[in-house]
């Protein structure tokens, strides 16, 4: 250790804080100048943290049967009854669905319909609920060997069992970050109701994203189903997102189908980038996930 005189050491210790402050301000400037730097650092950190988080999260998930909050353990009986009732109802719907599927197939054959390519998908565990006060994101751990297969996960769509939960904004070797649809920077083109009226679903940081820019004179109706739209080319059409609801201020919001606060398992769908564009032609270039998220 270098021996320094006492006054010099005191002066040095007094200088540490201002020096670190200047360095931090420098980091802010560098982060502003090079937007990718923070993303790369975050990706590297996520890759290091994801296995550790997976280790800690696994017993938690096991404890709560992989769904929702630990408190649900106490309402098992009620849930059981609800599930039985739902099951009975779903069995009725199943026969309806099968009839409709047969009809659909017949109609498709008559129309010489070309099916859309099926996407690759991976199941990923949500290992950490990261995000700040103004950002909603979760960290998922990827199955090993995914990075070697050369799949580009950035832009992949994350869905839980019910609906769209978010999009992958950063992907490393072992982990990926999913920006949730409730995030302030999330903007998703959607189609409303049976007629597929176009609108934009914007995250508000709250539980329910807002609906913006619907067609004038055709306001969204309460209870309309909200599906993704291929408008802009960022999303494939027809994925379930949520249901329209008018909040206390009489503004239309979307109640997400996905259990955004209790995500445990998500499926990441990698849609091929050369999918046929089903929406009307647009001049605007395809938006990537990176530009989707404004900094």
């Amino acid at each position, binding site marked *: 250790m270098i021996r320094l005189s006492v006054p010099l050491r005191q002066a040095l210790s007094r200088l540490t804080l201002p020096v670190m402050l200047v360095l931090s301000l420098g980091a802010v400037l560098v982060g502003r100048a090079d937007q990718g730097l923070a993303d790369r650092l975050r990706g590297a950190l996520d890759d290091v943290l994801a296995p550790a988080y997976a280790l800690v999260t696994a017993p*938690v998930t096991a404890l709560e049967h992989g769904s929702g909050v630990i408190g649900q353990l106490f309402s098992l009986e009620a849930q059981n009854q609800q599930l039985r009732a739902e099951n009975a109802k779903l069995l009725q719907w199943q026969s309806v669905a099968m009839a409709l599927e047969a009809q659909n197939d017949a109609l498709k054959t008559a129309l010489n319909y070309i099916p859309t390519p099926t996407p690759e998908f991976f199941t990923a565990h949500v290992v950490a609920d990261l995000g700040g006060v103004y950002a909603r994101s979760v960290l998922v751990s990827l199955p090993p060997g995914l990075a070697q297969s050369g799949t580009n996960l950035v832009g992949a769509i994350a869905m839980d069992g019910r609906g769209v939960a978010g999009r992958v904004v950063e992907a490393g070797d072992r982990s990926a970050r999913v920006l949730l649809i409730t995030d302030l920077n999330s903007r998703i083109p959607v189609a409303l109701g049976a007629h597929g009226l176009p609108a934009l679903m914007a995250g508000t940081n709250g539980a329910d994203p807002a609906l913006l820019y619907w067609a004038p004179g055709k306001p969204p109706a309460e209870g309309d189903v909200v599906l993704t739209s291929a408008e802009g080319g960022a999303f494939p059409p027809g994925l379930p997102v949520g249901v329209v609801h008018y909040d206390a201020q009489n503004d239309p919001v979307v109640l997400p189908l996905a259990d955004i606060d209790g995500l445990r398992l998500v499926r990441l769908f990698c849609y091929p980038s050369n999918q046929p564009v089903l929406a009307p032609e647009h001049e605007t270039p395809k938006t990537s996930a990176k530009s989707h998220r404004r900094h």
Partner: protein
Amino acid sequence: MARRASVRRDMNIWRRLDMASRYIWPAALTVFGLLIIGVPLGLPGLAALRPAYVMACVYFWSLYRPSSLPAPVVALTGLLLDLLGMSPLGMWAVLLLLLQGATLLARRRLISFSFLQNWLAFSGLAAVVSLLAWALQSLLDLQALPLLPLGVQIFVAIGVYPLLAWMFIKAHRGAAAVELA
């Protein structure tokens, strides 16, 4: 400090290890707690708890054990918070250092305060830092961010401080007390 202690007592390797572990206790607890808050328990307000927790750590340890939480550690904690929380890189590093600076400047007065007065002082500082965070992030994002999460964050910070302080005081007198080694 080590040299002074050696005058009084014999320094063997175990005692050195003990002292070192006690010395790094506050910094380790700060970083470890920050990471633990990310475990998805389905509890609401985890996102607001993360900065609140770090602010409480920086305030408390800067006040009672400043040598155990030096400025570089604070800056690194801030960077970690930025990377975890998707806020602009370096923003929380700056804010936490400002918080530490303010605490150290007022240390002589603060240290004579009662617990309630300290709580009040922390509440004020946390509110100012949270407001600065909101303003900085709004500026860097070029949009006025909603005020509700700011309110939640301040509320969480004020609410969580007594609990954290109770734990920290125990640690301050026990596991983190270098002089007990």
